[in-house]
């Protein structure tokens, strides 16, 4: 039993540590709130880094720390448990969370598709010389997505559907974006839904984009957003308001200053400078395109990723 007391002591210590970490949006002497944001270190979150550099957050008494998590699965629990005050996630994941009644809510826009076929930051690409030339050709093929049952496969299916193909026969396989260029090259998959900077790597190797799934899914599709726990929104509405304002300023600034975005990418990613200079940037509007989110919800329901439930947009969107 004594060993168990020791073991429990370790666990208790661990829990105590967690307790200390939670919800400590403590103020420092200058009155600034310490805020942790869980982000994925990809192109999409460039505005928050840029906004931090430009002082948009400190001007609103927010002392920002970015915590990088591997995907939304690590960030949502962090936000719910209070490890992070805010988090970044794609909308399909947020919709899934809503159907499960995860206590979170969107507070600011994250990133949006450019809405222009041929000039978006993500698309379905094939290798050089592939017989696939148009979205309808993707029917029955093997396509790589970074995460199964998420925004990638639902929007790709929509592309195929809109082009008159039958998406039912598509096999989706899960591959990290970074491995997609090699997987395409080696013929492990017929096509890959790939985003920047890996998209640049595919086109540099002679690959072609055959479908612009974000564009096909909805005009100016809102892809991802920043969110907070409902508890924080209830407890500290002021902080959330300031964060949203700072975030909106950052988004607007980033949208207007692509060169500075390319420069800030070098600070938190290891993307080669040449690639950085050439890659296609997404759009960073401040408003969430509600109808596009409705489309995502409809697509998700159609593909059965909500396990029969229907997401309630009023509960997840501001």
């Amino acid at each position, binding site marked *: 039993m004594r060993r168990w007391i020791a073991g429990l002591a370790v666990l208790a210590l661990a829990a105590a540590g967690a307790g200390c970490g939670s919800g400590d949006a403590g103020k420092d002497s200058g009155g600034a709130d310490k805020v942790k944001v869980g982000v994925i270190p990809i192109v999409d979150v460039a505005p928050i880094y840029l906004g931090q550099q430009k002082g948009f957050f400190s001007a609103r008494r927010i002392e920002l720390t970015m915590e990088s998590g591997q995907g939304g699965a690590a960030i949502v629990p962090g936000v719910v448990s209070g490890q992070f005050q805010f988090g970044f996630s794609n909308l399909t994941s947020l919709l899934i969370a809503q159907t499960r009644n995860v206590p979170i809510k969107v507070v600011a826009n994250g990133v949006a598709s450019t809405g222009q076929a041929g000039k978006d930051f993500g698309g379905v690409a094939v290798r050089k010389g592939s017989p696939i030339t148009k979205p309808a050709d993707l029917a029955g093929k093997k396509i790589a997505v970074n995460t199964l049952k998420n925004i990638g496969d639902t929007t790709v299916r929509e592309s195929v559907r809109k082009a008159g193909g039958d998406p039912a026969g598509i096999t989706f396989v899960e591959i990290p974006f970074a491995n997609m260029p090699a997987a395409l090259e080696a013929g492990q998959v017929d096509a890959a839904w790939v985003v920047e900077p890996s998209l640049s790597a595919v086109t540099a190797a002679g690959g072609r984009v055959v479908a612009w799934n974000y564009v096909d899914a909805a005009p100016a599709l809102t892809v991802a957003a920043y969110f907070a726990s409902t508890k924080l929104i209830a407890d500290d509405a002021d902080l959330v308001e300031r964060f949203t304002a700072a975030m909106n300023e950052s988004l607007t600034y980033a949208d207007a200053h692509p060169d500075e975005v390319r420069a800030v990418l070098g600070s938190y990613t290891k993307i*080669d400078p040449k690639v950085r200079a050439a890659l296609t940037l997404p759009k960073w509007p401040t408003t969430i395109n509600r109808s596009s989110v409705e489309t995502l919800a409809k697509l998700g329901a159609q593909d059965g990723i909500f396990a029969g439930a229907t997401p309630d947009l009023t509960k997840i969107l501001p």
Partner: protein
Amino acid sequence: MILRLSGLAGLLLLVEALPRLGLVADLPPTSRILTALADEAGTTAFWAAVGDTLTAWALGLVIAVAAGVTGGLVIGAVPALRAWTASTVEFLRPIPSVALIPLAVLLYGTSLGSTLLLVVYAAFWQVLVQVLYGVADVDPVADETARSFRFSPWARLRHVLWPTALPYVFTGIRLAAAVALVLAVTAELVIGAPGLGSVIAVAQSSGALPTMYALIVVTGLLGVAINIGARYAERRFLSWHQSVRAEMAL
């Protein structure tokens, strides 16, 4: 010594030659990996990541060793305790520490605590089990001698159990040190807690292959350094012990 280096040199040459001859795509040659390594070594972010990983490793190891040694001695010294806990130990020990990743994220998000939880869990069992073996290895004659001289329980622990268990404790620490590094990097890689693992993940998602390989080499070198250090410490502290003496003969 020359032989020892020849193996390494051969590997470096092979990695240089294969991609240059076009035999493997996606593997940067040694020279490019080394350049990337030099570039990384010039940044403070790199050293911060190494520091984070080593902090998680060291803290986790210390907690695991302290808990493992205390727990092992207590359980091992009291036969009844040993009998009652055996099944629980046997059940909890093989639970793969990666199964705890979701729990770690829940409790600590992507902070150091996540890494620590995984490291401590994995390393703790290595130490505990070795200490239990060690206590079981106590010479019955020595123990009976101690009892016949009416040693107090504390004196028995101090003069009979502990010296017998010490070599096992060191074996446990050595194994735990290696496992702790693996888990520290894994946690960082999979969860995204700060450290070398998360930098590797960033390098990978940025398509910076030479950097990714350079960082992998760094984790390997850290592991080698930890192994060598652990073995050196073991030899130094246990120079009197049979198993070490036997190893050094001839």
